[in-house]
Structures are given as structure tokens and as C-alpha cells.
């Protein structure tokens, strides 16, 4: 008969896991338990440990201070410092304006520079069309600027102003600019590109052209010398002007004594004559009728 109690020598020959070892092994093979032990327990332990450690004010401050110190240490390394600012592509006045509105005290760490904000500020200047801001090698804050170019002079109630192709006002002209076409009227700056096209189309009349007037913020009048006007329609003003030019070239129309050529109705171009011319014309008709 075998002994009821397990014999140590027998156990050596026939090793078997104990009941608890067997259960423990099976428990370890349970996926949920494995996940719990390998993820849940470290996570909970870290959470509890961290909470206990950081529940003390002084420790928290010390850790935050250490982090801040480390940050500052890295930020103020010489390779991250910006020493000076270079502005390219700007005229003298714009250059000064840029240096005024970029309030940076050099040297400064490049981490503290918000390049996009600086760029927005610079683009916010009227005279600047576009700008790119970057930090160049050698710790230079490089600002490349494309300035707006004035294309017309705009005369309004308060005086003369330079306006670029997009209608942005660039302030008073510093010297007289006879090379720029003149536009006038309320809302003329909103239609600068149309005005430019009309001016380009009016090149045959360039010697007589005085300027363009925006009428009622919707259409243009071309003003020539001797007080003559060409009233252009809202739609397709350039074609209307070209028609007038062709008519003028064929019949010498604009050289005659008339006040205005009204092209507002496409089907019915109209001309308005001077009082004297009108009377003369009547006389001539009467003479013609009298001879009859």
C-alpha cells in the first residue's frame, strides 16, 4: 500500500506542481489577468506614487522649478540665441516702421520669438505686401519684405493719396508723381484694377487724358482736357472706351467742340455739344434750309 501522505522521495521522482502552483500558472495564462498585471498594476502604482509624492507643496514646487530651470538652460544656449534683425526689400521709411513695430530686445532666445505673430504685424503695415520672417544661421532674425508699389494717385476730399493695384492706400506722395494716372471720386480705390485697364486702353488719348472719375461708386468717367468727358458704362467700360477711340480716330470726334460722349447705353451712344457749337449747328441748318 502506498503511503497516504505524499513521500518526499516519491515527489522527487515524479515532480508535480502543487495545486496552488498549478492555479497560479493557469492564472498567469489568463489574458485578462496578464493585461491587468502588466499594465494595470504598474499604472496604478505609478499613479498612487505620483499622487503621494506630489501631494506636498514644496516637492511640487521643487519639481516645477527644476523643470523651469532646465527649460531656461536649454533656451539660453548660444546656438538658440538671436542677436540682431535684418530687413531686406524695404525702403527706408518702411524699414523704420518695421523696426518700430517689432518690439524685440536682442539678444533673445529663438524659442521666445513668435515668428508668425511678427509676420502678421509686419503684413499689417499698409506699405507691406508680403513678408517672410525666419531665423537665419548665425542668430539673425531675417525679415524679407515685398513692398506695395503705388500705381495710381487718388484724389479725394482730404487730398491726394497713393494707391496700389489692390486698392490699398499708401499715404501721401512725398514728391509729385506725374507718371501715375489720377483717379478721383468716392470708392475709386475699390476699383483700381479696372481703372488701370481703362487707362491702358486710353493710351491713344494719353496726351489729352486728365484722369478718371468714379461716378456713384459704380462706373467711370474719363476726363480729358477742355472739360470733355467720356461716360463709360458699368459693364465692359474698356470696350466702350475703345469704341469711342475708334470713332474719334475715324471722324475726329473728340477734336470737335463737344462736352461729353455718353456711352452708358450701349445701343445709343450720345454726344453732348457745347452751347456755342449747338447754336452754330442750328445756324448752319437754318442756312441750309434757307438756301433751299
Amino acid at each position, binding site marked *: 500500500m*502506498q503511503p497516504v501522505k505524499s513521500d518526499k522521495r516519491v515527489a522527487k521522482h*515524479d515532480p*508535480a*506542481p502543487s495545486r496552488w502552483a*498549478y*492555479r497560479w*500558472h*493557469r492564472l498567469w495564462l489568463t489574458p485578462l489577468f496578464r493585461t491587468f498585471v502588466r499594465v494595470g498594476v504598474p499604472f496604478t502604482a505609478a499613479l498612487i506614487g505620483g499622487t503621494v509624492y506630489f501631494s506636498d507643496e514644496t516637492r511640487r514646487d521643487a519639481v516645477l522649478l527644476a523643470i523651469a530651470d532646465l527649460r531656461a538652460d536649454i533656451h539660453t544656449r548660444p546656438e538658440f540665441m538671436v542677436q540682431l534683425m535684418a530687413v531686406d526689400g524695404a525702403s527706408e521709411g518702411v524699414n523704420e516702421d518695421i523696426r518700430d513695430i517689432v518690439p524685440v530686445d536682442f539678444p533673445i532666445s529663438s524659442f521666445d520669438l513668435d515668428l508668425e505673430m511678427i509676420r502678421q504685424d509686419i503684413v499689417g503695415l499698409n506699405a507691406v505686401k508680403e513678408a517672410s520672417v525666419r531665423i537665419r544661421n548665425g542668430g539673425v532674425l531675417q525679415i524679407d519684405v515685398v513692398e506695395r508699389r503705388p500705381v495710381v494717385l487718388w484724389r479725394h476730399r482730404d487730398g491726394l493719396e497713393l494707391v496700389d493695384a489692390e486698392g490699398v492706400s499708401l499715404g501721401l506722395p512725398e514728391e509729385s508723381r506725374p507718371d501715375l494716372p489720377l483717379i478721383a471720386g468716392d470708392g475709386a480705390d475699390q476699383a483700381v484694377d479696372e481703372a488701370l485697364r481703362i487707362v491702358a486702353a486710353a493710351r491713344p488719348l494719353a496726351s489729352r487724358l486728365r484722369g478718371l472719375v468714379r461716378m456713384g461708386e459704380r462706373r467711370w468717367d474719363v476726363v480729358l482736357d477742355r472739360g470733355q468727358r467720356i461716360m463709360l458704362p458699368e459693364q465692359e467700360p474698356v470696350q466702350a472706351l475703345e469704341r469711342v477711340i475708334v470713332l474719334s480716330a475715324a471722324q475726329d470726334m473728340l477734336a470737335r467742340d463737344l462736352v461729353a460722349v455718353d456711352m452708358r447705353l450701349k445701343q445709343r451712344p450720345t454726344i453732348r455739344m457745347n452751347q456755342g457749337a449747338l447754336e452754330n449747328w442750328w445756324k448752319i441748318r437754318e442756312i441750309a434750309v434757307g438756301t433751299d
Partner: protein
Amino acid sequence: MIELYESQRAMRNMRKAAMQRGVVAILDVGSSKIACLVLRFDGAEPASGEVGSLAGQAGFRVIGAATTRSRGVRFGEIEAMVETERAIRTAVQAAQKMAQVRVDHVIACFSGAEPRSYGLAGEVDLEGAVVTEQDVSRVLSACDVPDYGHGREVLHAQPVNFALDHRSGLIDPRGQMGLRLATDMHMVTVDAVAVQNLAHCVRRCDLELAGIANSAYVSGVASLVEDEQELGSACIDMGGGSTGLSIFMKKHMIYADAVRLGGDHVTSDISMGLQVPLTTAERIKTFYGGVVATGMDDREMIDLEGDTGDWEHDRRTVSRAELIGIMRPRVEEILEEVRARLDAAGFEHLPSQQIVLTGGGSQIPGLDGLASKILGQQVRLGRPMRVHGLPQAATGPGFASAVGMCLFAAHPQDEWWDFELPVDRYPARSLRRAVKWFKDNW
């Protein structure tokens, strides 16, 4: 019969659930070793009625295998529960470790517990013109169950044949026209206590028993090739404590029995005859054993080492012929006992009388020659078929029943309890069923 139906159905459902989860363990509780395999089911079942690759054995893979020396098992029955439980624990733990998967369901097989075979016949008139599944259930429950005795339990009850009117040998009668349906059923009963002991051991290991099989049956499934199963053959599983035999015909087991003699008896004969401890006897048997002595064997001397301290006793030698002289009568006795069982079963009436020897005991050199003298001319040594992922160490004939269990788990044969209980068996429940149906659908 109803309780058995319920318990077997519960086990079948558990097996299905286990296969759904994908992992199930196979436990071969033998007298000399306990083997545990862990199977992973891929769920890649071939379409029904169609033979897939590897004849349908590709649906699973062995991912863990472990063997341990059996303790507490004699004659294929559990004798010392605690020892057996420890052995099962060892095997299961090692297999789990190899598989890196926790298994909860186990299908077990054992060879002992005096299996007895019964042939059952049943006959019913069909209700309609066509055989329905309900008719199959009715004919199965119409089988007159013999009085198999108190304290026995049905292990297998497989319909092996259906006959419709005068046409016999039908595999699947459903959908066929006829008037009378008859069936032949093969039933195996075993000692209920042995099954309960095994179930208790398995439960003590925190496992669920999802099926039980007779090891002679599963060894036959593993080591008989298809035409042998079809034409008629016997599989003799020579285990440590008992020798199981199963007869197959038309791919169904038609007879199962066990002889309570096995390799352990050979070992104890050697131990007694040569005055050596059992472990030494086992070692000598496996290294030098045989059943046919030749002149060479007289000159081959075997050292019988011992550690008694007596120089004369520890330095004895014995010739291999002497060893064979001890082993041969016992092996002959086993085979003659098997012969008697085969005769009792009427094996000589089968069209083909192929005999396949498998199990660890079949590795004795020269056994096939001896067996052909006793059992008949058509004897071969069988090895279990190869299954996916089985380690090389577990491909020997000793693992025939373990491999057979894999096939049994993957492709179980229809058993009686796989069919629905016929409707007339539970008229009282029909109202409850109707209520349940309403509940399920609304």
C-alpha cells in the same frame, strides 16, 4: 436513458463551446503515461460533404504537447485519485506552458473500466413518405436498450446502419422515400465509477470535462486507414495496463472490448524473473526486449545493474534470449486473450480481417511475426496518422489514442444524443416550448 441523454448532450455542448473558443485539451489517461495535447481550432472547416485538404484534418493544430509518467492508474482505471490528479496537473501544466494558452475544456479517454459492446436494433413506421430528421430520432429512441446492469454508463451510442424497407446499409436515410425505417446502433458501456473518478480528477484540476471516449475506439480512428475502416478491421491498442481492441466496419466502430493485460505485466514478469526493480525491468524491456529469440541473442549479454551494495547481486548479467524467454509467454497470453475476444465478437465473419497493432506495447521487436501466428495473417503495425503541429516525440504508436482524440474532437461521429429527442417523448413540454418560442420571437 433520458439523464444520460442530457449529460452527454451537455458534454457535447461544452465541446462545441470549447471549439468555438478555439482551444481544447486532449487528455489520454493511460496506465503507463498521461499525455496531454492542446489543440487550437482555426475554424477553417471544409464545407460539409466535401473532403478538404488532409482529409479534413486541417481544421486544427496541436500547439502544446506534454507527457508524464502515469501514477495511480492501473488497468486503465484510476486507482489513487490524488496521485492521478497530480499526474494530470503535471501534464496539463506542461502542455499549457508549451501552448502559452490557458485551457478550460478537456476531452479525456481511458482504456479500462470494462467496456462492453451491445448491438441495438430499432424499427419504426414512417409518419410521412419521406424520412425526416424526426424519423431518425424516433427510430433511434425506438431501439430496445438491453439491461446493461446497474452502475454502468453508456460511453458511445452510435447509429452504424440504417435500413429503409428492404434496402440496408444506408449512411444517411434523410430525404429518402420508404415506409419502414430500421437502424442498428452500437453501444459501449463502461463502469460508471471509473467515469465519475475521471470526471472528479479533471474537475479537481479546475478543468471542465467536455467529452469522454474509449481509447480503443480513438486509437482505431487514428491508426486505421480509410479502406481498413471501410472493409472491416480490428485495432489492438496495446497499452500499459490494458489492451483495448475495437473492430471497425463501414467506418463505424461495431465492437469494443479491453483485455486487462498489458505492458506493465510484461515488465513485472521481467522484474520477478530477473529479480530487478520495476524501473530497471522497464528499462531493460524497452532497450533489449523482443519476442523472437535467435542464436545471436544467446551471446548478447545484458547488465543488470543495481545499487543494493552486494557486489555479486549488482554485477549480474543475463542473455537477451533469457529476457525474450520471459517476455514471450506473457505477450502470447495477451494476444491469445485478444484472439478469444475477437472470436467472441465474430471477427472471422468480416469481409476483410486486417488487424492493426498500435499502442506503446506494439513497439516490441518481432511482435508482428508473433501476432500473425496467433491472430491471423493480415497483421500490421500501425502508427497514428500525422496531424498538424504534433511534435516528433508524440508521433509514435504510443500516442495513437491521443491523436485519435484530436480527430474525434475535430470530426466527431454522430452519436445518438446528437439527434433531437423525438417530439412524442416530451408532450408535456410542448406547451412550454410554444411559450419559449413566443418569448424568443417577441
